[in-house]
């Protein structure tokens, strides 16, 4: 009886190992097959060890904005530096400290991002910036709220290049009294997707 039990258990165990082997082998072959297809699609002669692509943004800490009144606008500049080539850059917004500024659908903050082909220049006597080169819209005006995933357009994304961005935050003129004395802490996470 005891031997019979053991042989039955042994059979199950072997089946399990065999099933795992088959599944693993199939996954391996599938992956390798896909890799072959990918390798064919890649440019020839593109081999050798490469640096891992890296996207960095400066400054890490943008200056405080406020106190804002309805209709106010605040501009902050960010430099995006590329090491390696990226096919896309995505902005994820996170709200580290919540308030009505990031949750009010009508009166809450709006964000727009523009790019200048040269470094943004401060307008003398004002708090805004002007573009001494060619300006383009990287992100059209959107409502600021946490958890947004926004694809940025018209960026250079070239190795060694820098994109000069201007973040424009606006408190709509229709913002009511309930939006007074509010504070939100926002984080902008730029993610580059390498090719």
């Amino acid at each position, binding site marked *: 009886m005891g031997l019979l039990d053991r042989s039955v258990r042994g059979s199950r165990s072997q089946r399990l*190992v065999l099933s795992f082997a088959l599944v693993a082998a199939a996954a*391996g072959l599938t992956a390798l097959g896909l890799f072959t297809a990918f390798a064919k699609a890649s440019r020839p002669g593109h081999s050798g060890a490469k640096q891992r692509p890296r*996207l960095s943004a400066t400054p890490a800490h943008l200056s405080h*904005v406020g106190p804002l*009144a309805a209709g106010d606008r605040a501009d902050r500049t960010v430099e995006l530096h590329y090491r390696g080539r990226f096919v896309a850059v995505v902005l994820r917004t996170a709200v580290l400290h919540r308030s009505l500024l990031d949750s009010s659908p009508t009166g809450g903050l709006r964000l727009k991002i523009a790019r200048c082909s040269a470094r943004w220049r401060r307008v003398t006597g004002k708090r805004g910036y002007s573009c001494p080169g060619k300006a383009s819209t990287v992100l059209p005006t959107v409502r600021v709220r946490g958890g947004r995933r926004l694809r940025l357009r018209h960026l250079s994304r070239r190795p060694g290049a820098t994109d000069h961005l201007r973040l424009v935050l606006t408190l709509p003129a229709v913002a009511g009294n309930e939006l007074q004395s509010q504070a939100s802490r926002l984080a902008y996470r730029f993610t580059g997707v390498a090719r």
Partner: protein
Amino acid sequence: MRRSLSTPGVTGKLIASIAVLGAAAAIGGLGTFATFTSSTSSSHTIASGTLSLTSGPTNRLGIGASAIAAGDTMQRAIDLNYAGSIDVGSVTLTTSASPSSALDTDTTDGLHLAVDRCSVAWTESGPPYAYTCGGSISTVVSARPLVGSNMALSNLTLTAGSTDHLRVTVSLPSSAGNTLQNLSSTVGYTFTGVQRAGTSR
């Protein structure tokens, strides 16, 4: 010595080897296709300000006057404070009367209002209250009928953190006839501040 059935024989080892190789290939293959990404962050705090219009410490507007005759004037001082963090763009005054009488409905011979500003606090005497200015005086509201809506106030400082020292003068014109005798009106004053225009911060 017992042979454990969980220990594989030659066949078992082969199967296990295939499993390991397969798993390794799978992991290697999938790893090849993982998309490289690089992330970087910036953050900051964004705060909205406050607009606050308060009165005091001087506020004599709550003090009435009785038995006034044609040609009489009443002066009352009030301090307007811009206590918020946002500058005020404009201030309006709305006056209303309840209960009302011909004193406030007769726009010709009824009560009239004028508002002046002193660059420093008014010096008070009385009662009956009268005020002199040790600095410079400017006209905030020119003489007009007492009751009105959204009267624009001129020559105010409006800067956040500052105070405007105002003197409200209510007068019954000399032309007031007998029909205005023995009447009474209670007048309320509402100052409303509107924020400055939006700007770049």
